[in-house]
């Protein structure tokens, strides 16, 4: 019963190009979404978030898009850099404050 799904376990992108990471959710009560980046042997690092009242939030090279009708969000990284290579987790926050994570997508940015 996975409420947050990232269907692509891995993604490989050339340096300088756009990386698009996708996430789907099933619970229409979720009202806040986050993306985390994780390097090996480190904890997840908060990257960017979006409230359900918005459809886009931008922070430098990172933009998150939310499509509520499709229950889908995506993270765009432009331009991609080798240092962006990491596992990216999509997460949603429940009314009670629990973070529900997706399975993660491993991004590899090749020089």
């Amino acid at each position, binding site marked *: 019963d996975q409420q947050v799904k990232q269907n692509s376990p891995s993604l490989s992108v050339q340096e300088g190009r756009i990386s698009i990471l996708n996430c789907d959710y099933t619970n229409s009560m979720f009202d806040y979404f*986050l993306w985390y980046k994780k390097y090996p042997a*480190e*904890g997840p690092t908060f990257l960017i978030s979006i409230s359900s009242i918005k459809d886009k939030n931008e922070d430098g090279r990172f933009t998150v898009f939310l499509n509520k009708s499709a229950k889908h969000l995506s993270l765009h990284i432009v331009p991609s850099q080798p240092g962006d290579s990491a596992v990216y987790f999509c997460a949603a926050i429940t009314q009670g*404050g629990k*973070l529900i994570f997706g399975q993660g997508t491993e991004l590899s940015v090749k020089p």
Partner: protein
Amino acid sequence: DTAVSQTPKYLVTQMGNDKSIKCEQNLGHDTMYWYKQDSKKFLKIMFSYNNKELIINETVPNRFSPKSPDKAHLNLHINSLELGDSAVYFCASSRPLQGSREQYFGPGTRLTVT
């Protein structure tokens, strides 16, 4: 200047032992959490404390007992360790009452039960 710290980073122990993992945050947050990342890399919440009070308990075996001596610390004690407890445990903190819902994570503790 570590925001959320955990000790130890690695813990190897035998089945049946009791062990503790410590977590401290210096962010001034009032809510702290424990998450478990299993072998399939799923991150799942275990517990949440707000200002030393338990607010989330996710059907975790009662061998796991969180303890919050003050709002900057949330320790995890595990009794009678089992092989299935092997995982990476992450502590996190946030300040939702101040309108900030992002959670900030520690570096993790890799527990191996043999």
